[in-house]
């Protein structure tokens, strides 16, 4: 996995996941969000438009991130889940835990509003 993190004009911290989010790399994502939270970021979008697959550890990392973000009064949206990835969230009921947007642009709009 590689990811790119950018902050747009509306103050949303956007992380794009490229490749797989699995047990071998989930800590990198958790660390990136934790660092951004420590630096005062409060609006997060994690985008999966270029993600191949996610395993249960990756889902678990997102659950941990979501909890941490909420505890710090910040907001998180996930975007760009294709049909296959979305099915993983539906099977595990995590589609009810996360705010999901079709695209990063929609997520940013939702966070900026």
């Amino acid at each position: 996995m590689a990811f790119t993190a950018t902050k747009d004009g509306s103050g949303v911290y956007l992380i794009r996941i490229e490749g797989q989010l699995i047990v071998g790399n989930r800590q990198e994502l958790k660390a990136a969000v934790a660092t951004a939270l420590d630096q005062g970021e409060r609006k997060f979008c994690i985008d999966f438009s270029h993600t191949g697959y996610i395993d249960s550890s990756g889902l678990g990392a997102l659950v941990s991130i979501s909890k941490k973000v909420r505890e710090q009064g910040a907001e998180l949206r996930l975007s760009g889940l294709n049909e296959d990835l979305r099915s993983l969230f539906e099977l595990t009921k995590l589609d009810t835990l996360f705010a999901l947007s079709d695209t990063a642009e929609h997520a940013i709009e939702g966070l900026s509003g």
Partner: protein
Amino acid sequence: MTAPLPASLQLCVRRRPGPAGASVRVSLRVPSDVGCIEEVVDLLLRHCTHGAWFGRRVRFNLRVALAEALANAIVAGNREDRSKSVLVEADLSGDQVRVEITDEGIGFDPGGITAPLLPEELDRPSGRGIFLIQQLVDDVSFNDRGNSICLTLRRP
């Protein structure tokens, strides 16, 4: 002092032509390193998903189930002990692919894990692995010791 050489993947592929298409048997010995999972999943998909019935969704399900089972074997089974390895044996024949993944751990009771599906449990970061595998493939079985899982995916 030199660093120890990283353990390497050992791959063996046997193909046998048959009236219903070639059957393929793949054996892989995988070091207990989570960094290998992606490569192993790619290798298995490359060798074991011939045939028109392997559509996008079937391939996706197999990828996730394999990644999941390998992670369990390396992390929970072998506890990432680099002196131990995971044996992967995959068979593609006719209308099904069957993959057996065996670690060197003491085994576990798969019935003892409940996935966090209730609203009040969704914040739990773990416990979804076996549940996901069961949802993504047609058949899942374990040996008595609980250190070997067998996944079967059949032609839809």
